[in-house]
């Protein structure tokens, strides 16, 4: 994005580099629970004082989006995004909700049986 091959002298994109977005960090200082399927939802409207990336995430996450989706939409690597999200979570702009663990889900066949039973009522 920020660069192009030597073949094309002009290219769209942005002159930013990824390390600028996160101040050169590659991982958060404190351990975060964010992973690809963590759902992110904003707690407030985008604050005009926010960095554009932060504001973008806050605006996007008016509806919950997974980290993987945000990463795909913003075309940002997950590590960078995780740092941005960590900052946002720390600033209480967004809320992170871990997905329902697979083990906690009720058995599908049981649910189906219940559903069929209810429909037969």
């Amino acid at each position: 994005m920020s660069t192009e091959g030597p073949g094309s002298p002009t290219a769209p994109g942005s002159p930013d580099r990824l390390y600028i977005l996160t101040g050169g960090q590659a991982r958060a200082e404190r351990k975060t629970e964010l992973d690809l399927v963590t759902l992110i939802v904003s707690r407030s409207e985008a604050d005009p004082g926010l960095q554009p990336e932060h504001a973008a995430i806050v605006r996007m996450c008016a509806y919950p989006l997974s980290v993987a989706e945000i990463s795909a939409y913003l075309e940002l690597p997950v590590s960078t995004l995780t740092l941005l999200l960590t900052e946002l979570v720390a600033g209480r702009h967004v809320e992170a909700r871990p997905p329902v663990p697979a083990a906690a889900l009720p058995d599908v066949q049981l649910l189906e049986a219940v559903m069929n039973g209810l429909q037969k009522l």
Partner: protein
Amino acid sequence: MVGTGSSVQRRPVSALIWLISPLVLAVCTGTAILAAAPDARVPVAWCGSSATVAVALASSEAARRGRVIAALRRRCTEQEAGLRYQLDQHEAETRRLAKELLPRAIHLLQRGAPTEVVLRHTLPVHDLEPGYAAAHRSVLKSVIEAVQAEEGLRDAAQRAFVNIARRMQAIVHQQAYDIREMEHKHGNDPDVFGDLLHLDHGNALTGRLADSIAVLGGSRPGRQWKNEIPLYNVLRGAMSRILEYRRVDLHSVADVAVVGPAVEPVIHALAELLDNATRYSPPQTRVHLTAVDIQSGIAVEIEDAGVGLTDEARRRTDRVLSREGDLDLDDLGEAPRLGLAVVSRLARTYNLLVSLRPSAYGGVRAVLVIPMDLITASKHPGGDIARAAKLPPIKSKRRPGQKIPPPAPQTAPPMMEHPIPPPLGDSGLPQRRRRRGPAPLPFGRGAAERRERPAPPAAPAAPEEAPKQPGMWLAAFNRGINGESLEPDPGRANSDIPSDKEE
């Protein structure tokens, strides 16, 4: 014996003077003849007349010689005047050669004029004798040739520099491109990702150096941008090219964009100024970067809390920044002045105004004014990333009429939608499974009327939905279990479940 020359007043006098002695002698002879005894008169007359004749001859000879001498003197004076005139002309021509012709010739040569044109522009004005004029021409010609050879050498050296810089830029660009690919590829692995960021940064620094060499060689810096770039991204682009970008605080930035052709020069000039600011201030201090609207354009200010400029240093920087004409490579010295020379050259080429003044913090305040004609309205404040912020509507375009579903359908409902539910994947990505199920439906039956429904009406519903999010999945789950139609609930009219009902 009357003079016929030009000097009328002197001639007759001198001629008359020569007449006096024969006349006096003749009178004396006559007197002597009369006074002598009659028998001695004949010899006296003989002697007297022969003496008179001799004196007359001598006098006439003297007068003739006098005339010759006068003529000679006259000719000598004329010759002397002629020579003096020539000497004056030569002197004037030589002076003109030194003061006018050579500077003009060198100026013309530096602007790339060929030898013939230069010689035609430096013709002598006085009509000189051919030999002297030829010598003059040959002096001029040999000087011109020497200067031309020197200029050629310099041009060749500059071209070589620019050529090397271009190759370096190409490699750096390719490398940056590769690194960016790798950053996306290894985005999940913080260790590799951190190393890649480190490499990316080093690569950006190398690129700036290559750009500097290209600029000093008289070329343009680096890549060219086709579209305008928001000033915010331009400033961050400049920050990304210096070693200590972490110390730069980016404050308020005017919401404008820089036109494509000026992006790279502005980034490069700002990067050099930022580099100076961070390099010459203590490592624990911050450097403040702001961009404000002014009458004539946008003023970008870089303020550091360093040692500031001494008077001598300020004079020197002013001299470097305001230097007209070509850069003297001898003048550059060590690295810091190299940066200023680059800034100065970029500023001259792109009409940027640069000034370094003492800062209120004691350091230096560098102001770079980007003129109005290089500024345009910003289409996407914040650049690509901010544009990406509008992506959720794009998503709803992909699935017309559907809002981004609340989390409940992402977990529980999928399990029930499938007659034979697929086993839960070990990757733990339930929402992907959900998509595989209901996603194609809106494009099939019953999708047409939903597609008619414009996306914007769905958008205002978003904020009022958001606060309920945390508990909603349970409600949806319950409703799903109850099998009730969800149509009455306007907020959820478009969710996945009704589309299942229609099936």
